[in-house]
């Protein structure tokens, strides 16, 4: 589907507004809970962009992984944090950070305008089957690397959070 006509343009600007405003909310919100909720909206907005680009699978994967797993884990971490430690504190770095991000945005916008991006006219949205085949043929190595990575991270995470009691129990056995 080409990104032409009123509908896609309207959808694009709407999604942009939602994503940017909520991304701003993530930064501005002093309450950590609000920040995470804004983050979730941002993720959903990004998923919307993926749908607009005919990448439905990635859009749904985005929702599953980022909203369903990452954001919920962050929420979980907040749940288990004492209320007093839950808020973003004020910093003196607000103004320099804003300046830096404006500068960065200016550079990026300039670059994006300046560049002749590689464009393609004949775009066929890949089906899930294509994705699966690609993952298990050309990209099988990164795919497997990711699984090794996850295993290592899993082992490490479990080790880091083990309580002394559990380790004592291990030593007993």
């Amino acid at each position: 589907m080409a990104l032409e006509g009123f509908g896609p343009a309207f959808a694009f600007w709407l999604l942009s507004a939602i994503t940017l405003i909520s991304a701003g909310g993530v930064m501005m919100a002093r309450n950590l809970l609000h920040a995470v909720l804004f983050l979730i909206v941002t993720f959903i907005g990004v998923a919307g962009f993926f749908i607009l680009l005919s990448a439905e699978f990635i859009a749904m994967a985005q929702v599953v992984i980022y909203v369903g797993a990452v954001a919920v884990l962050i929420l979980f971490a907040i749940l288990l944090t004492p209320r007093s430690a839950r808020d973003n504190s004020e910093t003196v770095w607000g103004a320099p950070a804003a300046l830096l991000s404006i500068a960065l945005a200016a550079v990026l916008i300039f670059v994006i305008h300046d560049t002749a991006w590689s464009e393609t006219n004949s775009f066929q949205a890949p089906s899930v089957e294509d994705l699966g085949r690609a993952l298990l043929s050309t990209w099988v190595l990164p795919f497997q690397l990711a699984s090794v990575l996850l295993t290592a991270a899993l082992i490490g995470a479990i080790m880091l959070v083990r309580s002394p009691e559990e380790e004592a129990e291990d030593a007993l056995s």
Partner: protein
Amino acid sequence: MSEVLNPFGSEIFGIWNWLDAIIRVVIMVTVMTVVVMYLIYGERKIVARFQQRLGPTRTGPAGLLQSFADALKLVGKEDLRPKRADRWVFEFAPFATFVPVFITLSILPFAQDWGVRNLPLGLFFMISALGLEIVGVMMAGLGSGNKFALLGAVRAAAQMISYEIPLVLSLLAVVMIAGTLDLNQMALQQDRYPYVILQPLAFLIFFTAMLSELHRAPFDIPVAESEIVGGYFVEYSGIRWSMFMLSEYAAMWGFSIFGAVVFLGGWQFPMGEDWGWGWQLALTMGKSLAFIFVMLWVRATVPRLRIDQLMSFCWKVLLPMSLVQILANGFILVYGGPYWLLTLTSSLGAAVLVAIIMRQAFRRSSTKTLVGAYRTQLQVPAP
């Protein structure tokens, strides 16, 4: 006319398409509300029967209007918000819980090509919408400023994240055989036998995980009234409380239809394609009601699990079994084994699963094996 009724594959951005979508959604909302009211009535009646009571009898003939009366009462109630609550989070939480549930309803095929929309990735969409539901629950728990609500949210989140994995894996086992994520296609393929015949283990895992995702007994610790006064929505009242109720029962119904489509042949089995839409609709509703009846049956029979039992059941039993199921499917499908081999391996797995559950259920309890939440310094020497 047929184009309006059958928008599958049509352009997304068009007036007619939007109009059509809105009409379908409105019909869906109405049907859902009525169904949910009678689900509540049905639950009260059926569970009462299990417990040798009568259930509602006074409002209307045989208490049929009881739910309407309750709904009226709830709408009329004052909408309270505790002072300690986080205003926006508290007020948006019911919507954040309800919207994902409703979204899942909008992709289910009730009969051949009957539904709000049919997506080529319907099953995956269902899974991703499921992930969203947790957010609403956590919003309610965190925003209420109430310890019981917080506890309920923690329990719900831990449980839902955990059980989502075997749920998705068991669905994947079926997807491997079906070769599609399109729910309509999936139903269409089950014209001779439903997938539950091929994958009884996946079906058992799906059903168990589904109970947990829905917070139904015996996995109802997030909303356990006797422990945490109702869980994450303890502070809600009136219309917002009823939205939680609505989403809970709507999810129950949606899940039942979903399970019926994936495992029991949905509108297709038996004779769905031949006997027309009336029979298809009846099949879908009948199968989903059967699902719901079993859920109520389980609720009335099985006592509530403790959180460590619940977690270890998920991670140590359901997850490995679903992985084994996928592995077996992979071998059989890649090497072109006959379908009865799928049935055989999966039935063996299902037998093992049932045996494990039975062993746990009839095992004599011993305090020595308590782990997790119930571990104390007395049992384990300090390091």
